[in-house]
């Protein structure tokens, strides 16, 4: 029976210090790895004889401005259909040099998902076959989903956010 514990055991046994930050929010195993080890970890989970994480569900970026040295996070979610278990892997990279290896060598579907993440967060997926903007216009010169771009006009004075608890 494959469960979160057995995956943790196996992954830690294989990678030791390279994987850390294990947690299980709402039962979904989540852990962090280094950008340099991501491919190895995903490849291990995908080709493991029992786990068989055959499906890349999602890739998403997250911006944590206060997490100095690891401001940008690239999250990928894998799903093993045979065991019906999911796992979420995070990689934190500094905003000054946000480089994460591409998963498109392992999953063809990563192509557009990573382009989307690049488009909105500026995470550079090294080795990506066609890393350019996908939803925004190509001559845009900033990454709009980063937290430094507030949604509403910051110069407005008639609307005090604190009063609305935001």
């Amino acid at each position, binding site marked *: 029976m494959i469960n979160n514990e057995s995956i943790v055991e196996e992954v830690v046994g294989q990678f030791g210090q390279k994987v850390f930050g294990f947690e299980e*929010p*709402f039962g*979904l195993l*989540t852990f962090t790895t280094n950008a340099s080890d991501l491919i190895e970890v995903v490849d291990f989970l995908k080709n493991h004889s029992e786990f068989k994480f*055959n*499906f*890349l*569900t*999602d890739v*998403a970026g*997250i*911006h944590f401005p206060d997490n100095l040295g690891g401001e940008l996070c690239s*999250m990928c*979610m894998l799903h093993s*259909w045979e065991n*019906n278990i*999911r796992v*979420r892997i995070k990689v934190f990279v500094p905003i000054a040099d946000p480089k994460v290896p591409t998963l498109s060598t392992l*999953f*063809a*579907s990563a*192509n*557009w*998902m990573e382009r*989307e993440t690049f488009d*909105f967060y500026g995470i550079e997926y090294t080795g990506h076959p066609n890393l350019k903007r*996908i*939803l*925004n*216009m190509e001559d845009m010169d900033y990454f*709009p*989903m980063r937290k430094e771009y507030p*949604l*509403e006009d910051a110069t407005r004075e008639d609307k005090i956010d604190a009063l*609305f*608890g*935001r």
Partner: protein
Amino acid sequence: MAENTLILPKDSNDALALNVPMVEDKQYSTLNLGPVHPATHGIFQNILTMDGERIVDSEQTVGYIHRAFEKIAERRPFYQITTLTDRLNYCSSPINNFGWHMTVEKLLGVKVPKRAEYIRVIMMELARISDHLICNSILGVDTGAYSGFLYVMQEREKIYEIYEEVCGARLTTNMGRIGGMERDLSPTAIAKIRDLVFNSFPKVWAEFETLFNRNRIFRDRIQNVGAISSARAIEYGFTGPNLRATGVDYDIRVMEPYSSYQDFDFEIPIGHKGDTFDRFMVRNGEVWESLKIVQQAIENLPEGPYYADEDHYYLPPKKEVYSSMEALIYHFKIVMGEIDAPVGEVYHAVEGGNGELGFYLISDGGRTPYRLHFRRPSFIYYQAYPEMCKGLTISDAVVIMSSLNVIAGELDA
């Protein structure tokens, strides 16, 4: 022609075999299919490189109706995000609405009563029927059969009337609330649903199938066109009917049952070749299964409350707002978006009209999401389109796009 004979796609199941190499100094013509081509059913562009009538290569441009929902959601209280989800797959908005509600309920730890879950299942399956109905009948239109589309449109109208009776809106439904439904099913709504699923719809759908399934002209156009193997489909992140057409019975309703789907008896239709015909037939089959689910749900609709007893998240009844101080306070706090959500990281997936519709939500304990990401099935599987139509003709490319059911709203978010 002799030295440049192409491998004809109709003999092969594996789209990769169709990979036609581009020859250097040969002149190809470029054709823009879209952004406003009637066959794209939405605004997105395909730049096709053509060798005569054959497609050698294609590139897609998407994002024409990108509305930055993920960014907007970061400034909105949870209940106001439902209106954004309406506009993802607008052919089946109730599925998106309830998918979002269930995500928030998972974060808040709200247990929804059985009756609300059954009402949700009814509305979600009606939405799936109307989604598949549009996709399949439009496939008919794209192959030149208009009458089938006009004929079943009448049934979609009845489904939209049911939406109207349940929530007041037709297309962008904003149906339900976090914690349940906003109102119970009215006797009129129940009568309309019963009439639809027991009387009118089965007859019409059977007739639609008679019109198409064994129609020689229709089948010549779609059979063996745009086939993809199951391995490639999984690689490309296919889910939903398009994946099931390749023979993989992956369905979130069975894998991770939500909203009481485990109570119902239904089957998952699958194809085996993954071509346009299989996609058409899988959707036809799913319509019958959805019909079965709605019939079971309406027959066994449990009694009881239709919303969870959660003062903090579910708007109190209007009557109490006018008479009780406590209800007024909660009403005010909810409407102004002053309820803090717990800290958490949630992923919840529902089986949307096109596949696994996922909501990845990070809450930092504030009143709005810290990060919300929609896993949109159309966006992910549409990238396989160049591979699927390589070596085929334009008329094939049109039916493949139609059968993939790419919805521009879901594609661009």
